[in-house]
């Protein structure tokens, strides 16, 4: 077995064994050129969450004893073909090939397809590998036996922030349109909150299973419901979602509950205590600039505009970007340098912003509480001394040591602004001047 593969073995509630070979996403594997993810025009909710691929999510479920049918991961058409050959050769009537990308709507985009023969599998894999789904290039696919689905359910364990508890959520109407179900028919969504101190109790999982209409598969449904919560706690996940959880028919006619898809997002704050999960971050889908910034302790999201922003504090950073747009400009990035940043961190932030060739002006907005204005000024001066492009920079520093910062910046001939509104206008003007 290749060194990047793991053999995972799980035991279903009925005692039958499932096994899967999971390959870890490896940057540089396969023949599709290493993509630079396109700059985004949106930024997601700024929560410290790590998305992981379906294949990796399934590995976590399997490790917690949930019933997940075996799968393989392929990076190239020959690999996909080989997997299909194995699966079809073992007696399956069809395989399913699923794009592994960290965005929803893969099916609608044509990234999930069945194939009934090796030749068809090769063709399908060829179409999906390299396809663009919502701006991400597909670099790997999951290949598995196509299931004979009798019915589909939705089940998830999620952190309910308003209730401050883990919520076990499910519906007998699984599949893609669950969000519409929630809107059209809220009572079709079953909800049970785990007790904040006692956790999810067995009787709750049973009630949940009956309400889901899974009485005929009670033992398995209860095990899966408890398993979702257990998975969440074991890995510090924010979300463990199975859609669809399906009743599938085996060749011998028996029916089983299995997880046909899995989405897991991990709490970034908790990753330090799960060092083995750090490898589940997918390097293929992280913008190299975002990754570099993350490793430097900065929160950075590359966007599509021309005005680079550097701010201390997420709320203030969003406000700064709002004001740039209000003044008629377009932010090139979200960047929060955090509290107490020293000169070297500021210099690193500046380098990352300037690495984007679209940036033609930079706005620095610092309200120093624990962050010291003079430290920031020193970092900016240090960065500008080595920068290769001469990009106009508007600096606005208030708060701790702002006076010292002002002296340093004046001596180094930086353009400054007193108010945030003024800084935003000046940055937009500088950008227009540069573009002219």
């Amino acid at each position, binding site marked *: 077995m290749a060194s990047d593969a793991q053999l995972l073995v799980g035991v279903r509630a009925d005692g039958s064994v499932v096994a899967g070979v999971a390959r870890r996403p490896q940057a540089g594997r396969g023949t599709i050129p290493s993509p630079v993810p396109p700059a985004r025009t949106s*930024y997601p909710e700024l929560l410290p969450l790590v998305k992981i691929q379906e294949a990796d999510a399934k590995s976590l479920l399997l490790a917690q004893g949930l019933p997940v049918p075996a799968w393989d991961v392929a990076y190239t058409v020959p690999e996909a073909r080989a997997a299909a050959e194995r699966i079809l050769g073992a007696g399956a009537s069809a395989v399913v090939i699923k794009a592994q990308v960290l965005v929803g709507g893969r099916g609608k985009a044509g990234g999930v397809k069945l194939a009934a023969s090796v030749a068809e599998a090769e063709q399908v894999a060829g179409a999906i590998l390299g396809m663009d789904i919502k701006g991400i290039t597909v670099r790997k696919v999951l290949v598995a036996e196509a299931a004979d689905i009798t019915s589909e359910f939705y089940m998830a364990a999620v*952190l309910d922030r308003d209730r401050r508890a883990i919520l076990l959520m499910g519906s007998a109407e699984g599949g893609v349109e669950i969000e519409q179900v929630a809107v059209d028919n809220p009572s079709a969504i079953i909800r049970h909150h785990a007790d904040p101190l006692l956790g999810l109790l067995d009787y709750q999982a049973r009630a949940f299973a009956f309400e889901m209409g899974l009485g005929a598969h009670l033992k398995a449904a209860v095990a899966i419901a408890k398993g979702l919560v257990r998975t969440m706690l074991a890995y510090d996940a924010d979300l463990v*979602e199975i859609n669809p959880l399906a009743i599938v028919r085996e060749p011998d006619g028996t029916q089983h509950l299995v997880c046909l898809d899995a989405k897991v997002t991990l709490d970034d704050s908790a990753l330090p205590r799960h060092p083995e999960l750090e490898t589940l971050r997918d390097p293929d889908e992280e913008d190299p600039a975002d990754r570099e910034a993350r490793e430097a302790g900065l929160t950075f999201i590359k966007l599509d505009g021309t005005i680079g922003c550097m701010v201390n504090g997420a709320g203030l950073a969003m406000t700064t970007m709002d004001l740039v*747009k209000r003044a008629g400009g377009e932010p090139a990035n979200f960047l929060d340098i955090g509290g107490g940043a020293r000169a070297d961190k500021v210099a690193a932030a500046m380098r990352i912003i300037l690495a984007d060739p679209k940036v033609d002006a930079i706005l620095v907005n610092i309200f120093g*509480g624990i962050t010291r204005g003079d430290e920031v000024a020193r970092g900016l001066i240090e960065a500008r001394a080595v920068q290769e492009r001469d990009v106009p920079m508007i600096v606005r520093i208030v*708060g701790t040591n702002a006076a010292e910062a002002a002296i340093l910046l004046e001596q180094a001939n930086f353009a400054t602004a007193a108010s945030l509104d003024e800084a935003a206008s000046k940055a937009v003007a500088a950008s227009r001047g540069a573009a002219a």
Partner: protein
Amino acid sequence: MSILVGPDTRLVVQGITGREGEFHSRAMREYGTRIVAGVTPGKGGQSALDGAVPVYDTVAEAVRETGANTSCIFVPAGGAPDAVMEATAAGIATIFCITEGIPALDMIPVVEMVRRAGATLIGPNCPGATSPGSAKVGIIPGSIHLEGRVGVVSRSGTLTYEAVQAMTDAGVGQSTCVGIGGDPIIGTTFLDVLQRFAADDSTDAIVLIGEIGGSAEEAAAAWAGEHLADIPKVAFIAGRTAPEGKRMGHAGAIISGGAGTAASKVAALEAAGFLVAGSPTELPGLLRDAGYRG
């Protein structure tokens, strides 16, 4: 009177001998906060802040010896949930947890324990609270404040400072300024703070500073529309121009049910009688437009 912090605050600082704890304790003390004790396990018997503050091994001992009623926690993320529980068990009524980076699931049993004890937790990952002219607990710079009668509540850190500075510069002072923090699971919500302001004789107007994500602003707005109808209320929401993110999984959308966008928050706030600013500097002017005469 003010809320949460004031002249009756008797503060114990958990983690007072650490770098963050020591630095901010000095600033709190300088502002006028009465720091009666510090707690660092193993350093009981020592003193902090140049001999001014006795250090104890446990919060229980600190409470017994000094009558501390408020705690400020500067303990790293690994130990902070336990520090909150220790303070709760020791009978501390008001606990500020400044620590950031606490795993979300760790806070679930903690907030439940605090709730059962009838205590109040603000945070975690919050800058604290200041009642200008009397006391501050946490890391909000004292220099931005002006004594006055406007209650300020915010999810943010530095954005709060920006907004408060704009108010102070315009001569519009604050009764109490509360940072509730940005973590997924927090001890005190916008709604909780508004309820306190409603009962506070010293607060005549409200400033609410929110952000995209979650439904806390919507919930607070709904309550305020009913129970704070007669007082001037203004808000600022950060992230109004942030385009929609790419969500993965359906559960978040199912539980949020449409709330969470800036548009949803602004609509809810306006429906409740808040005037919503386009920039933090507009807040003082909007307060006047809303009828504030302080």
